[in-house]
């Protein structure tokens, strides 16, 4: 029944879209805006229907059988809807149309919406042709479902993919707006303002999505920690870097009427980067820790979609190339610093792009397989990042147009920062940490100083100030936690002491071992106390055994010591011995805190308009 319904809705949507394009729908519904609203609404339904099918465990759908289990909690049953390839592409379609509906409330230009619906239809056709989520299978009482991958049974599975997708797909609005403005040569400030707000909304979700993914990878064993330069992580970073550049260049376009063509062309590439990322991981062309099921048809179809978007973009690039040199501003002005910012961000995006696709080209053309790992990124990316952070301290105070007054503080700030950096080297004896202190130093000093100046302090100021400050905090926390973490492997034997002394003079004490049963899994946990004589902190790492597969997962357990964290897993558990892997991650929570600050800062700048 649901299979019939789902396929039916898709047909209705396709027919209405075609009728709308050949202008026959006008005879039925005179208002084009109303027809757009109807099409957008109908396109929301397939995904909602799929969620419904999952929630009632409708095992007449193959997709439901493959991705959920009758005894999974309802929470995971519903979210299994985007656990599979089919469901996640249907979620893309859903979100494109959701953005379309919200955008329709602000902008009634039918031409722009036609483009959104066209892209949505391409994705809808893609999922229906290559892997129909509404494939029917005869009902059979023995079928209980194969279950959602136990590793995905995590609360972050509920929010991370949709949040990241909202970020990716939010970029469709800057894309269609850019294309429209370039085609119509309509460079009104109102449209640039509109583009800025949508790229900020996308940036909000993109940042939140990346941070949630990072946190998930951190809390799951064997996913490489909070950042691993895995292709799946990289391809989310590319649109983020480009979108960050876009937000900065749009400021120039709005405030000083410059870099307009630059911003519009950049706006096109942000969305292409999102789609390209999806293509790369979905097609399984690159080797990643996260692997998705392969099917050549899927890759081919995505190439067609990207080909279409890219052809459109390149055509508009060529058209606008001769007009690029119309911009003019003083070398020492905010405009030129923001252009510099753009060059750095675009170069970093290129560095990540090249590192991610190089193994693919090397394998296809040079026929040697290469893996590009952390050493490449840490070198090339940080090389670009370092000057960017230094500029970030001073650029916000430079005036638009032509900067007249000299910054007398500059040399003092640099010297002070160098002194603090040398001091930190003396104290911590770590070069990388001292370097990061030197690079972020001016940003912190300037942040404090600027609060005492007579700069107009509105929400706009605070959101920018907070965003830049949180990047500084993030860098310090990231370098510190990477440089100073340490781990111990504790092996408790049955007939010996239940206490082991730790490196930091504390004592690890093993307490009881528990065996509990839950709805769809069995949990074996070990209670471990970390004691300094007065205060005890408890950790309960566990091994879970899932039904129906019998698969065992290692569950991490953590305990916080202010900004730092103990991170424990059970390495082995047998009748005569228990092995615990204990890692101390200093300042890791500061990293999460700075990420929350960053997300909050963009939130401030979005709400300030209302």
């Amino acid at each position, binding site marked *: 029944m649901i299979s019939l319904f789902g396929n039916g809705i898709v047909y209705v949507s396709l027919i209405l879209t075609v009728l709308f394009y050949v202008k026959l729908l006008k005879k039925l519904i005179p208002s084009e805006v109303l027809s757009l609203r109807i099409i957008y609404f109908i396109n929301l339904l397939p995904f909602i229907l799929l969620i419904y099918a999952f929630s009632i465990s409708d095992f007449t759908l*193959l997709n439901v059988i*493959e991705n959920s289990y009758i005894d999974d909690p309802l929470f995971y049953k519903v979210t299994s809807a985007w*656990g*599979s*390839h089919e469901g996640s592409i249907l979620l893309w379609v859903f979100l494109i149309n959701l953005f379309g509906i919200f955008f329709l409330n602000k902008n009634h230009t039918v031409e722009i919406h036609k483009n959104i619906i066209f892209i949505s239809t391409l994705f809808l056709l893609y999922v229906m042709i290559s892997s129909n989520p509404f494939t029917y*299978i005869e009902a059979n009482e023995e079928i209980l479902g*194969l279950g959602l*991958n*136990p*590793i*995905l049974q995590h609360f972050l599975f509920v929010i991370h993919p949709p949040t990241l997708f909202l970020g990716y797909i939010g970029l469709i609005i800057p894309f269609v707006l850019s294309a429209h403005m370039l085609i119509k040569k309509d460079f009104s400030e109102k449209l640039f303002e509109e583009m800025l707000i949508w790229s900020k909304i996308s940036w909000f979700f993109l940042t939140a999505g990346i941070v949630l993914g990072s946190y998930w990878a951190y809390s*799951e*064993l*064997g*996913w*490489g920690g909070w950042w691993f330069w895995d292709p799946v992580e990289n391809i989310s970073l590319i649109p983020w870097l480009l979108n960050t550049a876009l937000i900065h260049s749009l400021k120039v376009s709005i405030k000083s009427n410059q870099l307009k063509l630059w911003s519009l062309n950049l706006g096109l590439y942000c969305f292409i980067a999102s789609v390209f990322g999806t293509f790369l991981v979905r097609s399984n062309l690159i*080797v990643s*820790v*996260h*692997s*998705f*099921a*392969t099917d050549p048809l899927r890759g081919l179809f995505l190439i067609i979609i990207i080909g279409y978007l890219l052809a459109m973009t390149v055509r508009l690039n060529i058209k606008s190339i001769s007009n690029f040199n119309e911009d003019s501003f003083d070398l020492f002005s905010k405009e030129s610093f923001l252009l510099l910012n753009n060059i750095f961000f675009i170069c970093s995006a290129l560095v990540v792009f090249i590192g991610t696709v190089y193994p693919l080209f090397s394998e296809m053309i040079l026929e040697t397989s290469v*893996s590009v*790992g952390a050493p490449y990124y840490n070198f090339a990316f940080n090389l670009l990042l370092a000057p960017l952070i230094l500029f970030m301290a001073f650029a916000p105070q430079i005036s638009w147009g032509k900067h007249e007054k000299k910054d007398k503080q500059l040399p003092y700030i640099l010297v002070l920062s160098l002194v603090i950096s040398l001091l930190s080297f003396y104290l911590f004896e770590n070069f990388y940490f001292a370097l990061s202190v030197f690079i972020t130093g001016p940003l912190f000093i300037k942040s404090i100083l600027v609060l005492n100046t007579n700069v107009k302090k509105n929400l706009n100021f605070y959101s920018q100030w907070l965003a830049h400050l949180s990047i500084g905090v993030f860098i310090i926390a990231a370098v510190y936690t990477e440089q100073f973490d340490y*781990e111990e*492997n504790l*092996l408790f034997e049955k007939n010996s002491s239940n206490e082991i002394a730790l490196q930091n003079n504390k004592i690890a004490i093993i307490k009881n071992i528990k065996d509990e049963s839950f709805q769809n899994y069995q949990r074996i946990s070990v209670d471990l106390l970390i004691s300094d004589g007065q205060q005890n902190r408890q950790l309960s790492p566990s091994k879970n055994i899932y039904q*129906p*597969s*019998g*698969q*065992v*997962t*290692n569950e991490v357990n953590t305990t916080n010591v202010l900004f730092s964290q103990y991170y424990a*897993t*059970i*390495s*082995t558990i*047998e009748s005569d011995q228990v*092995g615990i*892997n204990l890692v101390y991650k200093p300042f890791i929570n500061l990293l999460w805190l700075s990420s929350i600050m960053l997300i909050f800062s963009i939130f401030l700048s979005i709400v300030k308009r209302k």
Partner: protein
Amino acid sequence: MNELENKYLRVGGLVKENSLKFIDGSWVFEVIDQNKNSINVVFSKTLPNLVEEKKGIIVEGKLVNNTFIAEIVLAKHDENYMPQSAIDKLKEEGKWRGD
């Protein structure tokens, strides 16, 4: 393999059948590649989920005296995870769409 000694390396392959053991507080196993080359790996931390014999694995670390001392072990995870028994059942019924 001598020129590879003491360099930081990344190795991918399958965990050899009947080779995965826990000895003196460390996991010890053999990784074989598609050319049947094999290497002994020692890993002193907790093995990630999904590391199993005959399954794919990626290890990073150093080669010391022909033994690979792993610092990082990664296991691939798949969205279309499915227990083998279920795959067999679907194949039986002719409804299996995978490879």
